[in-house]
């Protein structure tokens, strides 16, 4: 295959970026999208030019490192597929492909196609965990979890934190990312004691990072490489409402921490 690429090149966070044209010739349809970029980069290096910088690591669709806008779609045209698992057989010979970094205020560009997604880590820091220190856990089978609940929690927990949901959202919202973690932990019995404060803190952190609000465009669900459902956003909204009401009606919900109920 012979392709024409237009790729976003930007030296660093402070400099201006622009789209640059490259010819990607003799590309095999069995290559992954990133292998196609590898080949383009080898040719650039041979000419003494800076290769296109992009994040990637496992190349198995699970680490969440890679991700780019491919013809305006986060992770490209194949559904439920991260960029590293997208293969060139999904493109036509002589096609023109536009490749850009994730676009969101909360994800500043670091270089070329690499963006800073540390805001997602900070949402988890705000409460996306169960506070259990090593050594204090009860016997694993002491608490039963129905198969349906465990499966649903797993559906939510499958998030790889790639940020495609944010990039695809017209509002730049991280509601799918946050909703998935809130739901995963709120569904499980182990997550109950911190359930209320968790959602309040995580949503506050999400807002503080500059992510937009969710207005249910559902673009996030369409591009999510793990096919995570917007149902989890609805669940997060319910959790948020529940916790907010409980906070207002003092003493009704024991899961509210002292600092917030006093």
């Amino acid at each position, binding site marked *: 295959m012979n392709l024409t690429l237009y790729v976003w090149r930007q030296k660093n966070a402070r400099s201006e970026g622009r789209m640059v044209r490259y010819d990607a010739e003799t590309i095999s349809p069995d290559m992954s999208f990133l292998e196609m970029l590898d080949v383009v980069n080898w040719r650039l290096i041979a000419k003494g030019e800076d290769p296109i910088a992009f994040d990637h690591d496992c190349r198995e669709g699970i680490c969440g490192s890679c991700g780019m806008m491919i013809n305006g779609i986060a992770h490209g045209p194949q559904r439920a597929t991260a960029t590293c698992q997208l293969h060139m057989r999904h493109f036509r010979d002589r096609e023109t492909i536009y490749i850009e970094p994730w676009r969101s205020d909360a994800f500043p560009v670091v270089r070329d196609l690499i963006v800073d997604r540390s805001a997602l880590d900070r949402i988890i820091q705000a409460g996306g965990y169960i506070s259990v220190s090593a050594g*204090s856990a009860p016997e694993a089978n002491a608490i039963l979890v129905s198969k349906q609940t465990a499966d649903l929690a*797993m559906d939510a*927990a499958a998030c790889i934190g790639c940020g495609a949901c944010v990039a695809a959202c017209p509002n730049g919202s991280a509601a799918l990312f946050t909703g998935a973690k809130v739901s995963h932990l709120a569904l499980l019995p182990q997550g109950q004691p911190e359930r209320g404060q968790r959602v309040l803190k995580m949503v506050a952190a999400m807002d503080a990072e500059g992510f937009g609000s969710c207005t249910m465009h559902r673009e996030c669900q369409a591009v999510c490489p793990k096919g995570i459902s917007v149902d989890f956003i609805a669940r997060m909204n319910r959790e948020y409402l529940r916790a907010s009401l409980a906070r207002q009606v003092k003493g009704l919900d024991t899961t509210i921490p002292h600092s917030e109920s006093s």
Partner: protein
Amino acid sequence: MELNSKTPSGPIERKWDNRRFEMKLVSPANRHKHRIIVLGSGLAGASAAATLAELGYNVQCFCYQDSPRRAHSVAAQGGINAAKNYRNDGDSIYRLFYDTVKGGSFRSREANVYRLAQISVNIIDQSVAQGVPFAREYSGLLDNRSFGGVQVSRTFYARGQTGQQLLLGAYQALERQIDLGKVTMLPRMEMLDLVVIEGRARGIIARNLITGKIEPFAAEAIVLATGGYGNIYYLSTNAKNSNATAIWRAYKRGAAFANPCFTQIHPTCIPVTGHYQSKLTLMSESLRNDGRIWVPQKKGDQRPPREIPEVERDYYLERKYPSFGNLVPRDVASRAAKEVCDEGRGVGDSGLGVFLDFTDAIKCLGADVVREKYGNLFEMYERITAENPYQVPMRIYPAVHYTMGGLWVDYNLMSTIAGLFVIGEANFSDHGANRLGASALMQGLADGYFVIPHTINDYLATTEIERADITHPAFRQMETEVSLRVKKLLDIGGNRTVDSFHQELGKLLWDHCGMVRNEQGLKYAVQKIPEIRQEFWRNASIVGGGEELNQVLEKAGRVADFLELAELMCYDALERAESCGCHFREEFQTADGEPQRNDEHYCYVSAWKYARNSELPRLHKEPLTFENVHLAPRSYK
């Protein structure tokens, strides 16, 4: 150099208890006075960093990824072992211990393996409490499945994403400590050297991968959890950026490197399709629970698999190993696949592939049950190959997956440099010459959650350590060395890509230090590697500068270290004139092609020490004694 394993006294089941009682403690009130550096944020690193912070230490945790959640533990698919005996099928701590020692072909330290089996049960408890959504039965109880090399069901799993879910558990524990201010996380940082002062590890020099700034960091103890070096083969199931730089730098500063030639070749990976291939993708070993492996009886049989009648198929694992069948350990399954392909019976365009067939499972269990168990793996296979495994058998071939070799550590997981602890895949680990499936996650978390927190306590409590800071001349000197090395790479100014050197090295190792080794091939490799290395330092093309994000430069530094480590692997493989586990020397095999171990002469851990001035590395031996699992031929027939 003295190799003191510091194995505790007493009967095997009491050793860890005895050690925990002997060890000195640091008072909770004093822990905040100590700084600990943790390198890597995979299962071992994240669990160690979080747990040390929970105890009250000040932790700095480094990773090269943009987030600790992306460490390559995330890609582990199949599961994690634990001796819970929930299936009532005869499992016990002793059996897990026995299976692991035998699976490792009697080349691991008994006391370490026993401790691992003991701790395995706590890991499941801990992970469940963190909210890891393990697979459950309709009763609400935890589900189990089987893995290779064992005859019980002791593997816990979360679909085909067990590594991801366990890592997220550890990552969330880590993020909680970051929020509490007990861990400072330094992502996109790469350790480029170790600072040793008066024989103790006191700090590191790291490069900020965004700005290129080279910075020193000091601490009272350092924990290396930077994973394995399987990426040295270029094509492997490891993440593209996995590297050996941290352990290799530590080796060059005095840490012994144990069993470097022990590399695990995983039998079920998607075969190579072209020269542009950048990595290989694993298909979980769990698939061997229900998939049947076969090749045609006839050489060069090009018929589509469905047209090959049952009688003309060779289910070679079931034929050769009737009691374990398709669930033999990885080394055995890989060699068997190579053997049938070498005979000309391999499938696919390259002839380097065997079928992994689910027809019988779909017939017997129904497509829905198969989808429930393996759906995401089937989808992944189809995305990569454009073939539907519900209709056509998968084609698989062995690929480099894991390294049992790594830095030598004593029972307390401390290397031969005082204050430098090594955990997870980065150490020479508990797996001997072959790791059983679902044991890597177990070991990483055992080391991080339950071993290192105790042994570091003891080190800090019993050692008089002056507070070192980065103004110490040793830091300045090392910083200068690191800067000069980066400059040297940038100054090469050649015209061959770094990747092409990596590919050349990988091919050489795969051919001569891979699934099968022999003296002639290894000697050739030992002579060839320095030539590639010289050519690299003369002709590698490293574009861009040092004070910016430069992925070519990052890669070049890692490949430069691989080019040195490769030679050590070959020396080790040459020296070990026996076959054991993954290390199959053609000269040493039984009449029916099984590895011929030589316990009389090679029942030891090879620990190599770096020698300066281009001398050959020096071999030290830690003899292995087996008081519980008696040395016996390893049979899965």
